[in-house]
């Protein structure tokens, strides 16, 4: 490629300058970066809420929070962490990484990713602006009726929670469809399904799970809003409804949700283990099959969240067995990672340290999960701090630790600079140590009978010391979080220049410059093996021929990744933002009046029409042809 062609390619893919460029960009990296930054800001806010709650519980009989404030704090913390941090940050990582790992210039539907972010932001505002106005949801992260129904929760707190979910789920679904289409149809020549990096398998499976699980929560929260707004009776026993229907639908989503958060982490762990063990992943096929198994089994476990509601005993027995069964594929993966590290030449830089912490913490969380999967034991443990400990071990240990490792691993690719190893290790020990100090005592507190969601407890129960230890641990972890973020910010300017491939990476994203230009690659890479970068001794095999004067991406066949055609990739547009605003108006309006669904649909339709209106010459034939002369 000549220098003129390179310059033309850069011009073709450049965003408009300034604010207009910010609002109209469809660059997957810019959109994913703002997604990731937003989730980090919310992680910080949710962490502050957690610390606030830990201070309240550090001693018996504390009165710095009243019960209402405590209810609001854990509701906001849980809802933020589940809906505004964990799921979106995984999708954001995928939006950022998937095209780079495929050697592509953008995702399949660039404007859809912009729309996804704007709606996600709408969800953030939907929860946090009312909080600023003191209308905070206060019924936990799953708002069961009848408590959340019209009789017991007047006002709009419950509606705000329910509609925040609609925002974030539409955003997540849009991102997932985009990721699935990109992975299935835009793999580089040679990257057959059997030669696809595990990270891409993980994101494909997690996105498919999202597509199948999220409609359930959108349906159930819409039913809740409709019970509250137009007096339907879905969850009102007096009208023939059933409160357990809510729980079934919620957990049909809620349990796969845990794996929608965890499966991408499997992708991070596999990518990092491979590079830092300096050998190809042990048991590639076993890893893929166990991810598929987790994806399927995750849809058959939801009732284990409902053991205490009095379902038929045979049902409990079935779901106990199914819940324990999922430990098999998870166990296979753990052994594959350990085998890879064992037989490799591991290099314990910060990203790998996070993976080691993941392995230990996730196994602890997995074991307490097997305990809680047994219905008789769950009846004793449910709604105690044992469960709080369990899900923090699996979610923080199983998903956040790999995420932090992934952040350190791909940071040099995104910024062109390495994070400081010394400060990175300090942050690691503070967070991993503080976390275990903070959450391990909660297992014991749960076994001692401390219920979750209590704002305080009397001294005679003897829970004070362990609670104080838990608070100290949490504070240390938060301090570690501050060190982590400061390290990332300082390294932006002071970090050592990284070059394209600082870790000796295996997959194609390491072939792009760091940070990648807006078009990612000058050429289209060809995948020759599972680790193309390691096998490119005489240079990476690439193909040329995609246009430089217009935005083009390559579309390939589903299984074999044979080149099929060159797809025009759309450029910057303001309409995803305008559509996002119109949809937001509809969502917000519909918690006040059902007519918002009718009148709100008109601006949505208009915005979508302008978004999708193709730009082509006017017709020259037919009744509306432009007549010349």
């Amino acid at each position: 490629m000549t220098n003129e062609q390179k310059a033309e390619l850069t011009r073709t893919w450049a965003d408009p300058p300034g604010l207009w460029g910010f609002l109209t960009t469809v660059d997957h990296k810019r959109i994913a970066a703002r997604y990731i930054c937003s989730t980090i800001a919310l992680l910080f806010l949710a962490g502050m809420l957690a610390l606030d709650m830990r201070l309240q519980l550090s001693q018996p009989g504390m009165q710095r929070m009243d019960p209402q404030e405590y209810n609001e704090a854990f509701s906001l913390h849980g809802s933020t962490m589940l809906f505004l941090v964990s799921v979106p940050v995984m999708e954001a990582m995928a939006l950022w990484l998937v095209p780079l790992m495929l050697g592509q210039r953008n995702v399949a539907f660039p404007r859809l990713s912009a729309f996804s972010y704007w709606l996600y932001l709408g969800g953030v505002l939907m929860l946090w602006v009312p909080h600023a106005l003191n209308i905070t949801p206060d019924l936990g992260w799953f708002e069961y009726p009848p408590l959340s129904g019209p009789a017991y929760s007047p006002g709009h707190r419950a509606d705000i929670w329910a509609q925040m979910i609609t925002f974030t789920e539409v955003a997540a679904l849009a991102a997932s469809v985009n990721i699935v289409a990109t992975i299935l149809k835009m793999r580089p020549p040679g990257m057959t399904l059997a030669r696809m990096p595990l990270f891409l398998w993980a994101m494909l499976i997690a996105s498919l799970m999202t597509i199948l699980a999220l409609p359930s929560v959108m349906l159930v929260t819409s039913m809740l809003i409709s019970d509250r707004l137009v007096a339907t009776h879905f969850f009102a026993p007096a009208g023939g409804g059933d409160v357990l229907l809510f729980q079934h639908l919620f957990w049909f989503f809620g349990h796969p949700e845990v794996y929608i958060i965890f499966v991408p982490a499997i992708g991070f762990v596999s990518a990092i283990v491979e590079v830092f063990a300096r050998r190809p992943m042990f048991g590639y096929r076993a890893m893929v099959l166990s991810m598929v198994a987790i994806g399927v089994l995750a849809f058959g476990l939801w009732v284990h969240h409902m053991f205490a509601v009095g379902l038929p005993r045979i049902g409990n027995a079935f779901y106990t067995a199914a819940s324990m069964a999922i430990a098999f594929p998870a166990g296979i993966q753990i052994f594959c990672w350990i085998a890879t590290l064992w037989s490799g030449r591991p290099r314990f830089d910060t990203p790998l340290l996070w993976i080691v912490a993941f392995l230990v913490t996730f196994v602890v969380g997995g074991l307490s999960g097997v305990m809680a999967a047994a219905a008789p034991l769950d009846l004793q443990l449910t709604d105690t701090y044992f469960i709080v400990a369990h899900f923090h071990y699996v979610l923080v240990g199983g998903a956040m630790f790999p995420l932090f490792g992934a952040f350190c691993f791909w940071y040099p690719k995104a910024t062109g600079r390495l994070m400081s190893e010394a400060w990175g290790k300090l942050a690691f020990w503070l967070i991993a140590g503080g976390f275990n100090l903070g959450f391990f005592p909660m297992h014991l507190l749960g076994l001692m009978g401390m219920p979750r969601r209590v704002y305080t407890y009397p001294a005679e129960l003897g829970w004070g010391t362990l609670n104080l230890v838990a608070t100290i641990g949490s504070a240390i972890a938060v301090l570690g979080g501050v060190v982590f973020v400061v390290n990332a910010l300082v390294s932006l300017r002071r970090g050592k220049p990284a070059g394209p491939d600082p870790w000796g990476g295996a997959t194609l994203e390491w072939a792009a410059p760091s940070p990648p230009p807006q078009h990612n690659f000058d050429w289209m890479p060809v995948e020759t093996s599972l680790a193309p970068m390691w096998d490119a001794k005489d240079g990476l095999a690439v193909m040329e021929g995609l246009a430089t004067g217009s935005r083009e991406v390559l579309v390939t066949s589903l299984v074999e990744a044979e080149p099929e055609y060159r797809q025009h990739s759309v450029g910057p547009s303001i309409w995803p933002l305008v559509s996002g605003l119109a949809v937001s108006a509809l969502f917000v309006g519909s918690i006040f009046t059902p007519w918002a669904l009718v009148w709100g649909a008109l601006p949505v339709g208009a915005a979508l029409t302008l978004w999708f209106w193709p730009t082509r010459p006017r017709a020259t034939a037919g009744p509306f042809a432009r007549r010349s002369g």
Partner: protein
Amino acid sequence: MNTIPVRVTGDLSALPGSASGAKHVVWWGNFGFMLIEGMAFLLAGACYLYLIGRSPSWPPPGDALPDLTWSSIFTAALVASQAPNLWLLRESKRKREKPVRWLALAMTGIGIGLVALRAVELGHLNVRWDHDAYGSVVWMLMVLHTSHIATELGETGVQTVWLFTHEIGDDQYSDVEDDSNYWSFVVLAWLPIYLLVYWVPRWV
């Protein structure tokens, strides 16, 4: 150096600039959204069946059965609309400008007719959504499906205007194909809902 060495092994410039059917990437996006909405229909249907199990009789005592006349006319018309729709699909695959324009216009007209029929049908459900859980779940299924008919009508209408006023390129023929596939989805999704709402209460 911020770049890595490469060796050129092939050229992609001879590839076509578009494709049709499942080769086209947008086909997969369309399929993804059908999967999402199909899942919503499935779960809404599951709610209906779940609530049957919670009620001593179905419909609950005192509720009238929904009328069959208008719903059956609507169903017959909806199924019949597949004929011009599949014709449109075939013409869009052949990239024939004139029949694609006129058939899209016909589908818009059919869509308007079906929305009108649906409005009449809704008046013959014989239960309000706020009467009991039976009414709520019947209306949920109907509103879900009606919103698809209305959205599809909007999409086909806009597409028709565009088709008549512009030169049609390969990607737009693909768009017509996707729209047509989506209509098939809306038709197919209705059949189990029709059975659930109108026939299941007569059978249980």
